[in-house]
């Protein structure tokens, strides 16, 4: 058995208190949420924080609600809650699809949305969705709350835009207008594995059937989750049924990826998957948008 090294433990009861603890001991402290990434890392002895600040007792950070033009998800919301949410299933399909592919039921029951995003693991599923849907993240620190766009939050592998004394309190995505659809497609070596490659695609159709909005996020194929901007631009005004446009965008998305060869597949294969998944994703998201899923 490999067990974690010794660590100190604090379980603050309020957000203020949590931020104060982080401010005081930020260099040697780590936030602990569901622990599904943190505990394995401790067991592998990757880093040995002197203090774990368990935020699971903070009140008011567990919610999934629509208000002010956003779907707002509290940072302590468990991934399983997204899977169960009827609102998410109907209106935020990419997020719903992705939540269902996160790990296995045990991990989803404990892993939090905040932890999934703050971990900065390029193989995690939810960051790609945030990028595709144009999401925002609310960080609360000593100076209060600030909003960071998802495109800008995922700085590097295991590194986000959060400061050491900040806690992510909310993740939100704009409520899609009518004629919108989204999808998350993931190829995994086996069910419950991390993505060999995955793509989140969000589409809004204009009055014709061209794209008024296209968002494409990639998981597992780079140092961070990737927003495939050139691919998004290539689809602007074009139809998701336009094979040529889709192929072009899919090719651009593959170019934006930089996977590495590992036991889940070669870099070349993963790039091919990106092309495929983005192409299939655009078609599927377009289809959902036309059906006007609500």
């Amino acid at each position: 058995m490999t067990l974690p090294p010794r660590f100190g433990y604090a379980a603050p009861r309020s957000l203020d208190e949590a931020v104060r603890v982080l401010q005081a001991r930020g260099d040697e402290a780590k936030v602990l949420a569901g622990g599904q990434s943190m505990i394995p890392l401790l067991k592998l002895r990757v880093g040995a924080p002197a203090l774990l600040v368990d935020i699971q007792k903070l009140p008011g950070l567990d919610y999934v609600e629509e208000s002010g033009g956003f779907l707002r998800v509290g940072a302590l919301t468990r991934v399983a809650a997204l899977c169960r949410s009827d609102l998410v299933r109907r209106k935020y399909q990419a997020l719903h699809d992705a939540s269902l592919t996160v790990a296995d039921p045990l991990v989803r029951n404990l892993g939090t949305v905040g932890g999934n995003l703050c971990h900065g693991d390029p193989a995690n599923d939810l960051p790609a969705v945030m990028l595709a849907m144009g999401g925002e993240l609310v960080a609360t620190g000593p100076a209060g709350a600030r909003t960071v766009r998802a495109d800008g939050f995922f700085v590097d592998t295991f590194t986000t835009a959060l400061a050491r004394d900040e806690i992510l309190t909310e993740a939100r995505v704009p409520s899609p207008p009518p004629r919108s659809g989204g999808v998350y497609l993931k190829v995994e070596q086996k069910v419950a594995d991390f993505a060999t490659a995955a793509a989140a695609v969000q589409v809004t159709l204009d009055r014709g059937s061209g794209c008024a909005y296209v968002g494409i996020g990639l998981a597992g194929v780079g140092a961070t989750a990737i927003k495939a901007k050139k691919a998004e631009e290539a689809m602007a005004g074009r139809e998701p049924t336009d094979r040529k446009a889709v192929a072009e965008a899919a090719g651009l998305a593959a170019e934006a990826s930089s996977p590495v060869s590992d036991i889940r597949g070669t870099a070349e294969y993963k790039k091919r998957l990106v092309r495929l998944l983005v192409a299939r994703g655009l078609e599927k998201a377009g289809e959902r948008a036309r059906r006007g899923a609500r």
Partner: protein
Amino acid sequence: MSSKPQSSGLNNLDPNAKFNLVGNQAVTRRDIYAKVTGQRKYTPDIGPGDIGRSTMWYAGFLVAPHPHARVTSIDVSAAQAAGYVTLVESDLPVGALFGIGARAYPPLVSSEVLYPGQPVAAVAAPTANEVVDALNLIKVEYEQLPYVFDAQEALQASAPQLWPGGNVPGGGVGENGAVTSGTLTLNLGDVDTALANADVVYEDTFGTSIQQHFEIFPRGAVAYWSGGQLTVNASTQFAWAVQQQLAAYFAIPATDVRVSTSLGGYEDGGALGNGLGNKSTGEEYVLAAVLAQKIGAPVKFVHTRLTHARTTTNRWPLSATFRLGAMNDGTLVAIDGIYTANVGGRGGAQGADAVGDFYNAYNCPNMRFYSIPVTTDAYSNGAAMRSVGEEQGHFLMESAIDELAHKLNMDPVQFRLKNMRQAPNPVEPFANLPYTTIAQPQALQEAMQAFGWSNLWKGWGVPSSVNGTKRVGVGMCIQNASKGSPFPPSTSQVQVDPDGTVTVYIGLTDHGAGGNTTFPLIASEALGLTSMANVKLIQSDTMYTTNASVTAGSQSTHNSHSLLYAVEDLKNQWFPIVASKLNANANNLAFGNDTIYDTTNPSNSISFNDAAALLTSSIKGFGVWQIPFNVAYRSTGARFAQVEVDTETAVVHVISHTFALGLGRTIFYKGAIHQMMGGSVMGIGSAFFEELLNDPSQNVTVTPGFPSSGSWLNPNFHDYQIPTIYENPDSANVIPVENIDPTGPFGATGIGENCIIAADISFINALSNALGGYRFHKTPIRIEDVVEAIQWMNSNPNGASSTSSSTTS
């Protein structure tokens, strides 16, 4: 006691016999609730309180990160100064070796590291958390040496020589590929002439990879001394052998050593946590005892996943080059096979079992097989993993046979029906031994019909359906594997108490295969009971039980045959007492439906409990059973599979699996069915996932305490993937075929290992069919292999005629 199997009386071999418990579909696993509710205590769960102590120390291994190296220095001073207890080889008794035969080894490296993961030092700490800290304080310096991972490379003269006398014990292969030595396992008829005269000759090479058991609980032991007496609660499949080994190591009488599987005693104490062949013996069993002696406190020594994966045994990679000859009518006329086994750093394994499978499975007048064991630095040592080479061997054999049928353009089922060994009168050709039983051709025919082969098979390389990017193929294979090997006598005891409680004592444990239910079931049936409610089981604990052989080799059910003799012995003690109560002749009494009755006047009877109440003390029957040596024990069956592949993503999905297996007689019905299903799913892992990998670049950076540095790439469940419930086929149909084996209790044979054997190649043959007849040559089939197959298919629209060399003479 007679050594001849008893074929009448208690051992009811009537195929139509009616039983209370044998084959009863309502019988469920006795330990199921304890297991799913987490109440069973496995060795890793044992705390000081469980053994009546207040403290316990915890131990771990420092393992070598390099595949081949000389240890130039080990400095344990910092660890000792910090209060930890260390062990290196020089601390151990001189000449106290571990392991068997010529390649016995000290439990810790003496000077040369032969594989990545070889234990160099052990350490004990007063808390479990500190073990890694303690290990980090030990400084080892290595001089790295040239290494070789691949068996074919290790055969070259230029390869690093790992053992005195070379990498092949007893010889090797010459420059032109001719076998200069190695072991000639079988030479029947005239292979060369037969190949020269064959209509079709097919030659090809296949291979497998290193696999790890990754059983649910890693191996380990808790050891403690009371005066001169040693107790070891080990996660072992063979408590009796561990007892003997420890007694020899410490030079004390075996009676002063108690070894049990986990806590021992009643069945809830004998929890193994699965073994699959990995847990017969272990160096940590010995080292835990050495440390416990040194510290004067109990020591718990449980492997981490990394040390478990890299230090304990593995399924060894086996490859084979075949030349097969057949006539145009499909008659198999010649088999020439050279098997090369990569036996790892310590050796141990070979290819003989796989060779035996081939010459048993197919009836062919001309057969020649060589088996070459090759030492490499790739991993520890090859040993049993749910079969002893047969699992690998069936992939090799059924790949080659399928491809030969393909060359002949013959339906693969028809080819097997024509050439496989089957009833009547099957004989093992090497020692010329008659089979105790065979389930062929019945198993093949039943599976074929249940699967619907004739509707689904569209011909070689022609998928049974294509839907967009999804192609579905079907495939099949047969299996014929040895079922354990005859061991010295197996023993057990059955006790009845005046209150009617029955206690079964048997030295076997439960692998997860259902032994905890099967053993008491056999005794209960023999005692005429209709329920096991008052039957207790004490297992795998040298304090209470005697040697019943290892829980392995699909032979536990077979070895529980001794229970019938124990019941017979019990009868001899008990029936005279009952006879006087019934005014009957003891020789005429029999057990039946919870009673003992007079067979000459069945209404003259007494209930089982009332008969027990006649006793003034518990009585115990002793059973000794010697398995006959002059027969062949084979397990035979057939598998069919349907597999879907997405030709864009290369993702493979198993749709259905149909598996018929001869099991003699079904004893514990649910257990047997679940074994058959579970083994088949395990075969999905073998086909598509499982492979223990070394870093080919060997840019080995060692981060202290970070277990994933070193030569290894995937010694964990995250990267070494095994199938879970999600990878199950959409539908699985298992068909137990009853083919009474007169040597087994009630006619049963064992099946545990045979449930995985050949599963992988059934899926792979189906995948091949989906992909235009592309032949896969190595397991596991990784995603890039599927990508390659798809590319090949797209550029070879005419199918598989060019996959490999085939000549027509």
